[in-house]
């Protein structure tokens, strides 16, 4: 395996690293936000559907 060396960023270390850091942060916010929103909606929908099927079952029970 080639020996691993951290690249020499020269005088531009701050710029390069902050560009990568900022990008990763923004992408993380986007992805995490999307996943969280998706999960929340899915759970709410499932709960709602369970509740309404539950109600329908209950109401036919007493007939």
């Amino acid at each position, binding site marked *: 395996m080639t020996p*691993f060396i*951290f*690249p*020499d*960023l*020269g*005088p*531009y*270390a701050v*710029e*390069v690293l*902050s*560009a*990568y850091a*900022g*990008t990763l942060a*923004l*992408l993380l*916010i*986007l*992805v995490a936000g*999307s*996943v969280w*929103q*998706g999960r929340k*909606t*899915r759970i*709410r*929908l499932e709960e*709602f*559907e369970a509740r*309404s099927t539950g109600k329908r079952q209950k109401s036919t029970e007493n007939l």
Partner: protein
Amino acid sequence: MSLSGAVLPWVTALAVAMVVGGLIWGFFFTPNDFRQGATVKIIYIHVPAAIMGSGTWFMMLAASLVWVIRRHHVSALAAKAAAPVGMVFTLIGLFTGAVWGQPMWGTWWEWDPRLTAFLILFLFYLGYMALWAAVENPDTAADLTAVLCLVGTVFAVISRYAILFWNQGLHQGASLSMDAEENVADVFAYPLWICIIGFGLLFICLVLLRTRTEIRARRLSALIAQERMA
């Protein structure tokens, strides 16, 4: 929904692999540029983000057209879902461009045609998202935002040429075109293409995910409304 559900994990895995792989390759295993030093490493995020920033708008345009013509609910929701993704990509493009530009051009910002057009695109995304948020009825919102997207695209194209006329720029010419002399050297090009494709896949996976969320949300509000009326 079932198709997108089956496809999503694969697209996600592939997207993550390519983005991470491409960035690692680009960051750790490519040399510095003769003129630009290590800042050339920013290209691996800046260019893919910029491409996806504009690409997303075109996808939204297509989806809006499908909605206007065929009234396929999924297309309207897909456009709505894609907007924040495009906005973030555009923001990344602007941000990385500024950080790259500062050491290279001596300035955080220049009213160069490409940057300016990109900034306007960012504003278009904001307006589009704001309109979706401001209208309660989802079908009305879909109609209004679709027309806005269409009109906005026309003006975006006009603006592009107006801005070019207004200020001949200092942004680099096309570096990835098939024939230009300004081509990026191969050693940079390979990881760059991987990042571009990776970002494209990331876009697809995020839009799939978000559209599924929108569909579920729609179903939920329809059910709630139904229950209220029963």
